[in-house]
């Protein structure tokens, strides 16, 4: 077949421009000669490979025969082979090939007859922590209800690919250990399912379905893609423990400019567990995101973003979040990873809340009326990561630090946390992290389950993440 391809190439090389101008004849002859040489080189290579394979075959044939397969299995396999061969004339099915276990990555990487027309990727993200007894009892750690445990935070099955010439689709199923109503359970859920229309005019793309909302720097990332083991507290307080996912539509536009400028607007149901829970398109959650990017010299680069989200809370009160983010990376010449990454984000909230009237004099009668008040709250974080070695095994080692400070969205008070971490990635598809996190709150209220409380929390956090199969590169 390859020889045939080579001959075809020679023929094409000889025929295509042949009849053109006379001065091209010499150039064509040279080109043909080059291709002939190339073909000869390849032919030699294949002859060698064929000879080697023949030798191996002879060696194998000279060995004693392998034990026969189980008698019952033979007719069944043969029958299947015959059926398939009849269904597809000219194709010989090897029963051993059919029986071979197939991992998703094998399916992804096999591009022969019967290939999959989409990609499969699996991500398993396990996290764990050690903390104090009172924190464990009060369910007041970074992973509430799962203190002093090692558990699957996110096991994702990702299916993605082109739907047709105009659209692509993503479907993501997620399995995770959750803690709800005092119970731990492993739950399966449809995490994402959306299509993207790719060929709209004016540099626009439309996403439709259940998707991560592009608000800020980290809230739309899958948990395993976070730069640290856990999301910053400010994101957890304002957007909940889960990734910021919504069902609706999002329109993105990239300006046709030398500088990157992207604008995104979205309209969603509003199903967020913390800030936008009304869940009605009649009063939708509306989001916007603007992002730009500048190269700073040959090796540095900074990305700046601003986001807004406006919708109703579960109490049917208006809530607006504003976000600002920045990320800087420095990657010296010849390095395959960034030496330094700096990132930070701030979120501001303007939220209407119901405040019940109070019985001020203790006579059992409400003295002040119920009213709507505005809660203006905010929080922020900054982080840095250093991957100081250029090459070799040490280059797989990274260290970082994060500090975050946040108010609580509806209650008074604030908390801050800080902690370093180390990461080691033996390959692109395997990563381990170990970190320490200290959290301090200015009150115990809200962190007082099981007659215990936790104002100060110290935790050792650890994480193991692996990827099977297709795993697209993460953007900047």
């Amino acid at each position, binding site marked *: 077949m*390859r020889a045939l*391809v080579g001959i075809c*190439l020679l023929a094409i090389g000889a025929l295509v421009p042949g009849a*053109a101008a006379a001065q091209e004849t010499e*150039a064509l002859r*040279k080109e043909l000669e*080059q*291709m002939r*040489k*190339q073909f000869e*080189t*390849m032919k030699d*290579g294949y002859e060698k490979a064929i000879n080697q394979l023949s030798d191996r075959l002879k060696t194998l044939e000279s060995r004693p025969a392998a034990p026969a397969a189980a008698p019952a299995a033979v007719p069944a396999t043969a029958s299947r082979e015959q059926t398939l061969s009849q269904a597809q004339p000219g194709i010989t099915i090897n029963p051993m090939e059919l029986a071979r276990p197939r991992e998703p*990555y*094998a399916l992804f*990487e096999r*591009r022969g007859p019967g290939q999959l027309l989409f990609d499969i990727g699996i991500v398993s993200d396990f996290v764990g922590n050690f903390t104090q007894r009172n924190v464990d009892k009060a369910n007041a750690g970074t992973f509430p209800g799962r203190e002093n445990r090692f558990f699957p935070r996110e096991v994702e099955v990702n299916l993605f690919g*082109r739907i047709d*010439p105009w659209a*692509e689709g993503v479907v993501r199923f997620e399995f995770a250990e959750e803690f709800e109503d005092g119970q731990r359970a492993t739950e399966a859920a449809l995490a994402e399912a959306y299509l993207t229309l*790719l*060929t709209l005019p004016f*540099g*626009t793309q439309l996403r439709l379905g259940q998707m991560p909302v592009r608000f800020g720097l980290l809230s739309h990332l899958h948990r395993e893609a976070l730069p640290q083991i856990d999301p910053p507290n400010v994101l957890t307080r304002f957007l909940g423990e889960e990734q910021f996912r919504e069902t609706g539509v999002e329109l*993105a*536009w*990239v*300006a*046709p*400019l*030398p*500088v*990157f*400028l*992207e*604008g995104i607007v979205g309209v969603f149901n509003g199903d967020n567990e913390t800030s936008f829970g009304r869940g009605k398109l009649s009063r939708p959650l509306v989001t916007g995101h603007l*992002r730009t*990017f*500048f*190269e700073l010299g040959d090796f540095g*680069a900074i*990305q700046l973003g601003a986001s807004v989200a406006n919708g109703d809370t579960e109490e049917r009160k208006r809530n607006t979040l504003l976000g600002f983010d920045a990320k800087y*990376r420095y*990657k010296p*010449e*010849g*390095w*395959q990873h960034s030496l330094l990454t700096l990132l930070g984000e701030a979120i501001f909230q303007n939220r209407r809340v119901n405040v019940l009237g109070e019985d001020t004099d203790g006579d059992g009668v409400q003295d002040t009326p119920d009213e709507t008040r505005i809660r203006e709250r905010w929080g922020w974080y900054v982080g840095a990561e250093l991957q100081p070695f*250029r*090459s*070799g*095994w040490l280059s*797989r080692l990274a260290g970082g630090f994060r500090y975050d400070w946040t108010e609580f969205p509806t209650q008074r008070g604030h908390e801050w946390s800080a902690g370093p971490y180390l990461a080691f990635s033996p*390959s*692109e*598809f395997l990563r381990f992290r170990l970190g320490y996190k200290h959290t301090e709150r200015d009150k115990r209220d809200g962190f007082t389950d099981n007659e215990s409380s936790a104002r100060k929390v110290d935790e050792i956090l650890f994480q193991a993440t692996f990827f099977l199969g297709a795993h*697209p*590169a993460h*953007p*900047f």
Partner: protein
Amino acid sequence: MRILAGLLSTSLLALGLWAAGGEAAAKIRVVTTTTDLKALTEAVGGDLIEVDALARGSQNAHDLEVRPSLMAKVRRADLLVTNGLDLDQWAEIVVRGANNPNVLFGAPGRVDASAGIMVLEVPNTRVDRSMGDVHPFGNPHYTADPGMAPVVTTNILEGLVRVAPQHRAAFERNRQEFLARLAQAMTRWSAALAPFKGAKVVVDHNMWPYFLTRFGLVQVGTIEERPGIPATPGHLAKLVASMKENKIRVILAVPWGDYKLSEWVAQETGAKAVLVASAVGAVKGADSYLDTIDYNVRTVAQALK
């Protein structure tokens, strides 16, 4: 607030119109993933096109950081030329973020330069990631071999003709002129390396099979134990022993590799580690495609003397 929003919208609209107006009068915008493809595209397109490469010559094109600035380049491209064979898979993320339907996979403005290449090292058994960052479609570094340029430039020519059919004659003329220069240089390169036919070399990364095959040299080992995975001490010990036994005199190292390690192995074995240009612009003096091959041929010939 409304005034601010109005001003912002007007500015963006004005910028968009300015950019669109500029596009109409400009040359054909081509973006390539590597600098080798940029040089070959320039050779075919000549003055009629404007080419930008996403990766710098000194970068490892297997694993490029997907920066939004790359998306901005692709956003305005009429043609995107990719290496294919899984070398530049990251280009899909760039294209997705660029919102440019002209260069989507399958669109007329998309060229896979590997079409028609006789690919080396195509796995004929099952592959998985225990083998490292293995390429299931075969070795993707075909542009290191100048003998592949006729096929690559044919693919580029076809792509350019798809987006600018009125310039077909000019593109074909440019290509023929380039191939004529290449043929002359090829004679010179073949003569320079002819005395070393059959010489054995070690490489840091397995990216030279096309180049070595072209000039009759033989690769007998790699410093990387598996593609994309750093060498283990056990592998290095075996490699050093093997190099001593086979009297290997040259190690070819790429600019983005671990050159210190190559030098260490060279020191242990009495060989010489030389820096070769993994792409156009990877080292000083490798400014064009012909210069790059010229540099590599001279460097290897010098080291093998």
